[in-house]
C-alpha cells in the first residue's frame, strides 16, 4: 500500500488525494445499501490521470471504483472490495452545446440537469430526466443508463449518446461513435459502454444528441376508483395515436401517504391517480387532450381535471413529487425497486404486487412511470428491524420473479449493481449471463474496474440488513 501511495502521489496533485478516515468513510456509500471503506479516494480531473491510475491499478492489482455524486439506487459506485474510489464529480467544467449539430459535449462530472438547462438557451432539450437530475452527474447516468418520466416518449440515456471517450480498464484511451446521428462503422461500442455500470471503462467525455424543445405542454390528472380500469385506460391512450411525454401513476397507498404528509386535497378513497403530460405544438396538444378526455368517458370510475395554467400543472405534479418524502414518514428505510413489465401487463403486475404485500405483510407503495411499464414498488421498512428486513428481502425476490415471469426485467433504470446481481441468471439464463461475463473478461482481464457488480459471486443472496 505504501508503495502504491507513493506512485499515486507522483502522478496526482496532493490536494486531489484523500486518505483520512473521515474522507474514506465519506465515499463509502451511495443512495442504496451498505457501506464499504475504500483505501484511498482520488478526485480525478483529466483522462491522463485516469489512464495512469488504471495502469497502476493493474500492476498493483487494486480495484478501482468510479463514482459521480453517489446518488445510485443500485450500489453502482460502492467500493465493495476496497481499493481506490475515483471521484469524478469535480471534473464538471466542460459543457458545450453545438446548436448547428444538435449535440452537447460534456465532461463526466457535469450535472445532468445543467445539460438540459444549457440546451434550453438554444431552444434545444436533453430529454432524460431522472428525478435526481439536479444532483447526479452525467457520467453516473451514462454508466447506469438512467431513465426518468420522459422515457415514455423520448427514451432513456442510451438513446441520446452518439459518441464517447473512454479509458479502458487497462488504461488505454479510446473513442467510440462520433458526432453524427448515423454511424455504422464497426461494433456499436458506445451502446455497450452505456449501462455497463462502470465495469468496462471510465467515460471521460460524452457527445450527446439534443432535440428541439417542445414549445408547449399540458397536464391532466385522472382519478380512478378502480385500479384495473386505470391500467386499461393507459393501454387505450397509448394505442390512440397519442404519445404523452409523461404518464405517471400513484396507487392508493401513495395517495394516502401524501395526504397524511401534506394535505393537498387528494381523494384518499381513490385507487389510483394518473398524471399525464403532453408536449408539442400548442394547437396539437389541445386537440390531443380532447381525444384523451373522450377516451376517459368510456370509463365509469374516473374523474378528470385538466390544468388551466402552469401553476395548476405544477400543483398536480407536486403530488407525485411528494410521494418519496411522504412514504419515509411511515418508516425510515425505503427499498426502491424499478422492475419493469411490458405495458399491457401493468394491471397484472399491480395484482401480483398486491399479493406480495399481503403475503409478506409489508408496507408496499407503488408509483412510477406507468406509460412505459416501469413501476416503482417501494417497500417502507426499518433496516434496524432484522425480522422485518428478512420479510422484505423475500418480497423483493418475489417482485423480481413476478416481473420476469410477466416478460419484464429486473431493472428499468436503476441498474443491477450489488442488489440485483443475485437475480441475473433468473432473467438472462446461464448462457446469457456467461456471454456478458466473457465480454467483461476480455475488456478487463485483471478484474480491476468496479468488481463485485452486475455478476453474482458464488452463492450471493440479496441482503438488506446492515
Amino acid at each position: 500500500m505504501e508503495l502504491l501511495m507513493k506512485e499515486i502521489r507522483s502522478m496526482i496533485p496532493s490536494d486531489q488525494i484523500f486518505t483520512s478516515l473521515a474522507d474514506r468513510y465519506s465515499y463509502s456509500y451511495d443512495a442504496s445499501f451498505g457501506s464499504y471503506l475504500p483505501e484511498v479516494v482520488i478526485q480525478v480531473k483529466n483522462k491522463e490521470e485516469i489512464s495512469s491510475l488504471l495502469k497502476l491499478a493493474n500492476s498493483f492489482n487494486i480495484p478501482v471504483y468510479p463514482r459521480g455524486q453517489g446518488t445510485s439506487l443500485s450500489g453502482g459506485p460502492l467500493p465493495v472490495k476496497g481499493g481506490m474510489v475515483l471521484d469524478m464529480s469535480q471534473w464538471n467544467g466542460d459543457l458545450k452545446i453545438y446548436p448547428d449539430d444538435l449535440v452537447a459535449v460534456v465532461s463526466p462530472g457535469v450535472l445532468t440537469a445543467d445539460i438540459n438547462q444549457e440546451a434550453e438557451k438554444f431552444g434545444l432539450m436533453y430529454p432524460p430526466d431522472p428525478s435526481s437530475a439536479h444532483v447526479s452527474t452525467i457520467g453516473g447516468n451514462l454508466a447506469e443508463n438512467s431513465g426518468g418520466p420522459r422515457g415514455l416518449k423520448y427514451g432513456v440515456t442510451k438513446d441520446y449518446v452518439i459518441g464517447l471517450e473512454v479509458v479502458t480498464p487497462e488504461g488505454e484511451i479510446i473513442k467510440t461513435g462520433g458526432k453524427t446521428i448515423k454511424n455504422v462503422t464497426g461494433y456499436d461500442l458506445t451502446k455497450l459502454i452505456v449501462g455497463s455500470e462502470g465495469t468496462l471503462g471510465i467515460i471521460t467525455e460524452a457527445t450527446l444528441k439534443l432535440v428541439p424543445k417542445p414549445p408547449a405542454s399540458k397536464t391532466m390528472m385522472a382519478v380512478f376508483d378502480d385500479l384495473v380500469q386505470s391500467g386499461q385506460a393507459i393501454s387505450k391512450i397509448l394505442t390512440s395515436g397519442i404519445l404523452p411525454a409523461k404518464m405517471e401513476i400513484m396507487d392508493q397507498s401513495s395517495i394516502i401517504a401524501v395526504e397524511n404528509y401534506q394535505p393537498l386535497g387528494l381523494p384518499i378513497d381513490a385507487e389510483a391517480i394518473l398524471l399525464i403530460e403532453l408536449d408539442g405544438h400548442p394547437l396539437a396538444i389541445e386537440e390531443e387532450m380532447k381525444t384523451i378526455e373522450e377516451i376517459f368517458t368510456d370509463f365509469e370510475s374516473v374523474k378528470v381535471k385538466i390544468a388551466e395554467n402552469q401553476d395548476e400543472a405544477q400543483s398536480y405534479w407536486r403530488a407525485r413529487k411528494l410521494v418519496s418524502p411522504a412514504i419515509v414518514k411511515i418508516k425510515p428505510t425505503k427499498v426502491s425497486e424499478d422492475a419493469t413489465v411490458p405495458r399491457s401487463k401493468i394491471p397484472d403486475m399491480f395484482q401480483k404486487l398486491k399479493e406480495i404485500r399481503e403475503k409478506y405483510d409489508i408496507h408496499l407503495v407503488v408509483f412510477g412511470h406507468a406509460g412505459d411499464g416501469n413501476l416503482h414498488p417501494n417497500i417502507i421498512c426499518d433496516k434496524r428491524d432484522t425480522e422485518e428486513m428478512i420479510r422484505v428481502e423475500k418480497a423483493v425476490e418475489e417482485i423480481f420473479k413476478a416481473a420476469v415471469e410477466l416478460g419484464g426485467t429486473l431493472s428499468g433504470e436503476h441498474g443491477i449493481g450489488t442488489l440485483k446481481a443475485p437475480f441475473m441468471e433468473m432473467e438472462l439464463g446461464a448462457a446469457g449471463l456467461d456471454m456478458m461475463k466473457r465480454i467483461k473478461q476480455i475488456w478487463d482481464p485483471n478484474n480491476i474496474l468496479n468488481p463485485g457488480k452486475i455478476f453474482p459471486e458464488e452463492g450471493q443472496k440479496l441482503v438488506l440488513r446492515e
Partner: protein
Amino acid sequence: MSTGAALKDRLHYKETFNCVQCGYCLPVCPTYETMKSEVHSPRGRINLVKMLAEDKIKAEDLREPIEKCLGCRACETACPTSVQYGKILEGAKEVLEFAEQKSRAQKISESLIFDQMFSSKRWMNTIGNLSWFYQKSGLQKMAQRTGITQLAPLHMGTFESVLPDLPSPAERKNRARLYKAIGSRKITVGFITGCVMDAIFYETNRNTIDLLTKAGADILIPESQTCCGALHAHAGKIADAKALAKRNIEAFEKEEADYIVNNAGGCGATLLEYGELFKGNIEWESRAQAFSNKVRDISQVLAELDGLNFTKEVNGTITLQPSCHMINVQKVKDEPISLLKQVKSKGYREMKDKERCCGSAGIYNIVNYEDSMEILDSKMKNAKDTNASIIVTSNPGCLLQMKLGIQREGLEKSVRAIHFVDLLIEAGAVSK
C-alpha cells in the same frame, strides 16, 4: 467523554437513520460547493456523526467537517425526507465541545464571549457604547489609516471597518419599555431586541419600533429579556443556550403579547425552536412551545398588518439577500419581497441563488475567515449580476458580511447594504 448509548443519544443517532443518502442536499450546500468534498456536505457530515456513534471513527475525525459547517440549514429545505440536520449538527457540536482539549487562553476568551458578553444586556450595551466611543473619538479613523486593525487577531479589523454608526449612551438608556400604536391599536407585540442587534444596530431596533407603531402595533419590551442563545447553541453550548432561553420565556410570559417579534433572522430561528430545545422537559416544553408559537419575523407582522404606505422614492435598484435561518428555518420567504416591491425604487431584482448562505453564519466568518471569504465571493458574483445598488438583508451578521463583500469587490461607491427595516424607514414609511 460519554460512551455507548449516552453518546448515541447525544449525537441523535436515531435521527441519522432518516437520511437515505440520496444526495439532494449536495447542490444547495455552500461548503460542498466551495470545499468540493463529501466530508463538507450535509450527507457526509450526517454519515460521519453516525460513524462516530458506531465507534468507527474518533471525535477528532469529525471535528473539521462539523466546524466548517455554516449551519445555514439549506440542506433541510432541500431534503426530501425532512432530516433534522440542525439537531444532528448541534448534537455533534455539543459532543465535540465536551471532547475538546482546549488551551487555557481559548477557554478564557470563550468564557468571556459566551458566558458573560452575549448573555448580559449590560455587557452588550457596553460593547455598543465602546464601539460608539471608538467611532466618534476618531480612533477608528486613525486605526484604519495606520492599518493597526489589520494586525488584530481573527481579522477583527476587516469586520470593524464595516460597523455602522452607533447611538450615544444617553439615547440607549432612554428607550421605553412600552410604545403605543400610532392611530388605532390592531395588535400587541413583544419585541425581542437581540444582543448584537441592540449593541451594534441600535438604530435598526429604533426603526423597528417606529415601523411597528406606525403599522398599528403596541410594543412591549421586557427589560429582563436576554440573548436568544443562538450562538451558544451553534457552538455546542446547549446548557447555556437553555439557560438563556428560560430567561426569555419567563420575561415574555409576563406580557400579554399576540406575537413576539424579532428583526434578526438567526435569532428568530432559534426562538422558533425553543419548543424543540426543551422537548421532553416536563416543566419547560409547553412553556417553550407557547413562546415559539408566537415568534414572528418583523416582515411577517408588517405584511399581516398591512398598515404602511411608503412615501419617499429610494434611489436605486433593490435586491434581497435573505438570511438562511429566515428562509430555511422560519420559512419566511415572500413577505420581505412583497414589502420591498411596495417601496418606490428603480425596481426589485431577484438575485440568483439568493437563498444561499453568504458565509457570515454567526461567528463563522471570524473563526473560519478564509472559507467564509470564498463563500462570500461566490455570493457577490450573483449580487453583482443583478446590477442592484441596494442589497437588503434581514440579519445583522449578513448585513456586516454584505458590507464586507461590497468592500472586497471595490463597489463602495455604487452599491450599499442595508437592513430591511432601515430601508423601509428610508422609503418614508407612514401609517395608512
